């Protein structure tokens, strides 16, 4: 299977594969890297010493996420009508924008698609193809930000050995996606929206809080005390929908094996560490590899990497420039 198909299956839940054939160039890089062990260690320590811990991408991302959600809020509160609606569906200076998963739920439940619904869905589809699919998750979704903060708490408790992370099979999310689609189709109700923390939080911000926030809080508690980032990793069909869109996106994180010391700091901070499988020693088959469609382009790995082996990249842009 092609690497594209492997990555796609990886997003659906398949375990990452070891490469069958490593290119000669990479073989040479790896040989040179480990030829002199002392030099390798020395270089590694040197890189560590000179790595300034940066939160550049995280800070940018949080700013964008908060700004996007605040734009919804002030559009309504101050009646400036820039971005009307909520994350499920909205209008940006008059143009329809409709969340792909919400649109899917409505289409399957109602079985009738009006023009505005189609236009809004198509616009958002094109938007996230350009911007990277799951970029929605880490750069826009308000639940992602809350979950990130509660994740820090979870990690602290893990460190103190008060809780342990219970991993589930990543394929569960694919099963959920199918189940939620089937439920909408069969029952004729948008079943998933009842528990979608993205929709609940977006509406709570704009139209005021309600009891539904209790459900969101329960989810966060589950993530703190039982399973790290469980909702985003194993359940959320919105993430998978955008992941599929992002599989053809030119915006991604690119990995350059030559600069990598294979220490795995990136995998520790990542929401979806399976996309960073290539950073394990001898897993990269090519010199430059882009991470799979499940990557949320959050940039935490870019921030944490001491050598710049992981960077944002737009496919084809370097050739254009």
């Amino acid at each position, binding site marked *: 299977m092609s690497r594209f198909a492997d990555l796609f299956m990886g997003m659906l839940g398949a375990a990452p594969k070891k490469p069958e054939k490593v290119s000669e160039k990479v073989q040479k890089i790896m040989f040179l890297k480990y030829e002199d062990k002392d030099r390798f260690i020395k270089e590694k320590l040197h890189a560590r010493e000179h790595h300034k811990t940066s939160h550049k991408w995280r800070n940018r991302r949080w700013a964008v996420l908060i700004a996007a959600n605040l734009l919804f809020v002030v559009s309504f509160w101050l009646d400036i009508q820039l971005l009307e*609606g909520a994350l499920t569906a909205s209008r940006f200076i008059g143009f329809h924008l409709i969340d792909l998963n919400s649109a899917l739920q*409505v289409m399957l439940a*109602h079985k009738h698609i009006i023009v505005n619904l189609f236009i809004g869905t198509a616009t958002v589809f094109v938007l996230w193809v350009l911007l990277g699919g799951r970029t929605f998750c880490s750069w826009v979704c308000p639940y992602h930000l809350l979950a990130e903060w509660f994740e820090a708490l979870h990690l602290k408790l893990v460190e103190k050995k008060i809780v342990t992370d219970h991993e589930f099979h990543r394929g569960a999310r694919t099963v*959920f996606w199918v189940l939620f689609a089937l439920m909408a189709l069969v029952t004729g*109700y*948008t079943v998933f*929206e*009842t528990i979608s923390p993205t929709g*609940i939080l977006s509406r709570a911000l704009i*139209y005021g809080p309600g009891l539904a926030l209790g459900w969101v809080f329960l989810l966060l508690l589950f993530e703190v005390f039982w399973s790290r980032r469980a909702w985003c990793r194993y359940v959320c069909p919105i993430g998978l929908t955008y992941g599929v869109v992002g599989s053809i996106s030119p915006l991604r994180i690119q990995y350059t094996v030559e600069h990598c010391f294979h220490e795995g700091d990136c995998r520790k901070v990542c929401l979806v560490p399976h996309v960073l499988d290539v950073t394990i020693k001898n897993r990269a088959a090519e010199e430059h590899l882009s991470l799979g469609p499940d990557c949320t382009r959050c940039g935490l790995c870019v921030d944490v990497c001491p050598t710049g082996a992981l960077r944002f990249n737009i496919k084809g842009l370097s050739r254009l420039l």
Partner: protein
Amino acid sequence: MSTTQTKPAMSLEKAQKARRKFLQSLGLTVTFAGIPLLGFIPVAAANRPPRLRPPGALNERDFLASCIKCGQCVQVCPVQAIKLADIVDGFGIGVPHIDARTQACDFSCDAVQCILACPTGALTYTAPDFHAPRAGASLAAAPILKAKANDPEPTLNLKERMGVARLARPESCLAIQGKGFKGQTRGPAFKGELRYLEVDRRKPIAVRNHPYDLELCDLCVRECPLMDAIELRPVKDAHGVERMTPTVLEPCIGCGVCEMVCPAKPAAIVIDPQAVWKA
């Protein structure tokens, strides 16, 4: 030989671990797929009173299916009549409704803005073909808005009613008692708004800022935004005495203004949400 001996032991432990992970994942799937299905309970509950939906809403089932829970209808309403339901409404979470007693839809927007704003056609001028209107839900004629009575096009583009008004507590109706009304209806703390043509056709104001002095209370008839939807008629009571009685007529679309302005506590006239006209 040693490898073949140790290998089964290793893989047994691995298999157990994999089995545990599979079962836990199955548990997660059953739990998180089951929880949203609880949302069916409030939708199916027989004793749950129907919600008053914004104008142009599809039949309840189709409405819940087609609403994308974005609240754009909430944002365009000039009197903020529309509210979104909470998680206790189950599948109806985030779906708009109106509490007429708190703030009725008074058509201050003239053009039914909420319908224009709806991106999915849950609120619509023209229902899809497969949407069979319930008997009595369709209006006999396009409703004429009092505010637009002198316009070249005085009607609202609305084909179905939201509900029907009903004199639920005739014993507390001031008109039937032959009483007048003086002062602020609903008291000084009431936040509801209404468009008064004699004040400003374009801008709704707080009801409390518009006190009345009426010889015979006719607030429900006076403030009804529609032509010929309700009138005071002499009706004989149980003792054969003729009393001026609010009488709801066929053009009533169930907007709820009568319920909002009724000074009786609780309101003598109420909207039956999603009710149809019965001759």
